[in-house]
């Protein structure tokens, strides 16, 4: 068939066919592009993974090799110089992947203590790894900034200028970033700096509270602030967090203020305060707990029954008896358990008297 005839026929094709043909071509091209991306991605990620793996092995080898040297009787200074020289040589020849090196050092740091740990941090400082982490703080990506904050706290960069910079980030709009900045400040301080709780107007999420607590656990109890100072905060989440920390770190020096929280307007605070008095065994809270037994809020009611079971005496059994026929299944269950617990206390006490 002559070409002229085909072009003639094509030229006479209605517009709708052209639209369909264009759509098909675009879709086919799209599919081909996606397939190409899939294959290229596989190839690139495999190569990158292998390269990273090799490099990681190489850096680890440098560090462990140096550790062996140090065990062979070298002085700490000589050991340090040896390692630093290895890495400098590497930097000159192939360049240094500082991010990877920081990761390896921070990983190794977890299993070291005392002088070895201090030496490791010294090596990081000599190789200017903290400067690298600091530079990352200025990046736009919040993930990179979070990573930088972790590196700064891991490498123990206690410089006041750095702390000032971190303090500014503490008030960043991004919740994860501001949380990480708060954690970094806590980790870097000799005693945890929780002054941000004084001025916090937004709710402290449970997620943030869990991370703050995880960080505070690493301190000695005497280094921790008195959390009852935040029990009068107008921010409900701060009061909740303080009550949780009071329970966790057993700070019962201000029991009056803790009991006062049992009449807080927020049901969440009351429930948490009940748990606190129960865990800290503040027996003087029992009369207030009894007054909460007929609260319409089931969480408050159940928590107070449980707390009375822990703190009360047989004197409270009559108060609990009426709840054995409550309409709520859980109220009935917890009441039965609480009464049994109170009676067991009496039995074991009389057994002790009998034996003596």
């Amino acid at each position, binding site marked *: 068939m002559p070409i002229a005839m085909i072009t003639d026929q094509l030229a006479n094709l209605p517009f709708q066919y052209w639209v369909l043909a264009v759509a098909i071509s675009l879709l086919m091209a799209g599919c081909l592009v996606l*397939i190409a991306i899939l294959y290229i991605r596989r190839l690139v990620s495999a190569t990158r993974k292998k390269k990273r793996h090799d490099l990681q092995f190489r850096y680890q080898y440098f560090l462990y090799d140096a550790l062996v040297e140090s065990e062979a009787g070298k002085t700490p200074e000589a050991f340090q110089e040896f390692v630093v020289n290895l890495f400098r040589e590497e930097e000159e020849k192939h360049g240094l992947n500082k991010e990877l090196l920081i990761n390896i050092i921070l990983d190794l740091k977890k299993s070291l203590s005392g002088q070895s740990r201090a030496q490791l941090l010294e090596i990081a400082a000599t190789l200017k790894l903290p400067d690298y982490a600091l530079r990352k703080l200025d990046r736009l990506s919040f993930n990179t900034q979070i990573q930088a904050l972790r590196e700064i706290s891991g490498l123990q960069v206690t410089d006041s200028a750095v702390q000032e910079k971190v303090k500014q980030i503490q008030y960043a709009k991004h919740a994860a970033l501001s949380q990480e900045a708060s954690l970094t400040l806590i980790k870097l301080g000799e005693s945890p700096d929780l002054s941000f709780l004084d001025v916090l107007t937004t709710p402290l999420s449970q997620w943030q509270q869990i991370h703050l607590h995880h960080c505070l656990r690493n301190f000695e109890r005497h280094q921790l602030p008195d959390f009852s100072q935040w029990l009068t905060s107008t921010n409900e989440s701060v009061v909740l967090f303080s009550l949780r920390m009071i329970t966790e770190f057993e700070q019962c020096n201000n029991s009056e203020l803790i009991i006062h929280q049992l009449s807080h307007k927020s049901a969440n605070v009351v429930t948490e305060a009940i748990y606190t008095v129960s865990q800290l065994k503040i027996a003087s809270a029992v009369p207030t707990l009894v007054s909460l037994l007929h609260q319409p809020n089931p969480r408050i009611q159940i928590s107070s029954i449980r707390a009375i079971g822990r703190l009360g005496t047989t004197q409270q059994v009559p108060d609990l008896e009426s709840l054995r026929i409550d309409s709520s299944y859980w109220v009935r269950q917890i009441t039965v358990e609480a009464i049994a617990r109170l009676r067991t206390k009496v039995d074991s006490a009389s057994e002790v008297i009998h034996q003596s």
Partner: protein
Amino acid sequence: MKEIIIHSISYIAENLILVYAIILAGFSFFLSVIGLIEVYKYLINNRSDDRNALLSSPFTPRISLIVPMYNEGETIIDSVRSLLSLQYNNYEVVVVNDGSTDESLQKLIEYFQLVPTYLESNYELPTKKVKCLYKSRQKVFSRLVVIDKANGGKADALNTGINHAQGSLVAAMDADSIIAPEALLKMVKPFLQNKGRVIATGSIIRIANSCTVEDGSLVNIQLPKGWLARFQALEYIRVFLLSRLGWSRLNGLLIISGAFGLFDREIIIKAGGYCTKTVGEDMELTIRMRRYMHEQKLAYKVVHIPDPLCWTEAPTSLSQLSRQRNRWARGSVETLVKHRGLFFNPKYGLMGMLSYPYWLFFEYLAPFIEVVGIGYFGIKAILSQPSWLNFSLFLVIIYLFSVFLSLVALIVEEFSYHKYQNKSDVAKLILTAFVEPIVFHPIVLVNALKGSLDFLVGKKSWGEMKRKGFAKQEPESAKKVAS
């Protein structure tokens, strides 16, 4: 005159089908783009998560993992053992024996040294009679609670579990689902952040056929070897990574899969628990919880996370697949009929104005429209000169578009979780994407139609699903003996 009428009908029908196809394709594309954004944001926001804090925290909410069990004697011990070793420090596993006729319960009693506890039963959500509650004598199994009850179906078993759950959050799952060890840590996160009240979270479900399972945990991930399971693997990747995430971003999600979902217990109870009169209880519950929140004028969210945290066995025979798809279709139509008051009802916000109509027109009615379209062309071919070129081009576009969407989903998977790491897996998945619309789609279509017809005749049964079981890793000693 007759010709004009025929011509007008033909013109309207053709254009209606065309408009329908364009809207469906456009919306699918829109959802895919939104889904992509959601995956990207999730990965960015969670890249720097420190889960160690959550692992050991005493402040995490208590989660009750409810496992309905019916004749699962073959796998239940491994499943429960695996569930007892999840990475979360504040949870309980509530196994509800829904009147099994095999030795499932006895096996549990013996293996976990269970003893009856003489507590009264809770019927806050009405359920069939609870016979006994068991707890283990061993401290190491103190997280485990087993409830023995009269047979009442999956929904009834889940309601029994919810009644006896001590957690403020309840996770509903299938007894044969394999949950990733970090699943609870990841699923609970949306509940802990201050971003509005979250009432439910779901995760990506993946196909576990051909994967190796040891002690109820996944130890080696493989792309399914059989074509049927592989089609479903691709379908799950596409649906969960693009469509469900897109809806999650719009806060218009109507379903949290029954295979694994985490719910706010208080809201489930207030909404009335699982409905025992439908085979689509997962979708029905999600809609009812959402309705409850709207009716109470409470702000809320239903979140879907793109992490593949649950693995399930897909049907490997046509008859099993047919039964499953038939059930899904019946479940959808039952739920849509039950909640018809949502249809374009502004009182229910996006759910009433977009999610429900979309589900009705483009999920439920799509198979009907497809059949009508094909039927229409058939009639036209018999009655007059058919426009084969038009028809073929139209079919090619639809085919290429569905391949394109599958490839987009594969790209997202490759850049995010990259679970299938064998070199040949990419080629296999691409090939599956090209074959699926021709081979698998018609099967799904026929069964969706059959399900809708079964609904009309009032069929209610679940249909038996025989599991083939997962590949198990052979112990070293056994290998030696064999060699």
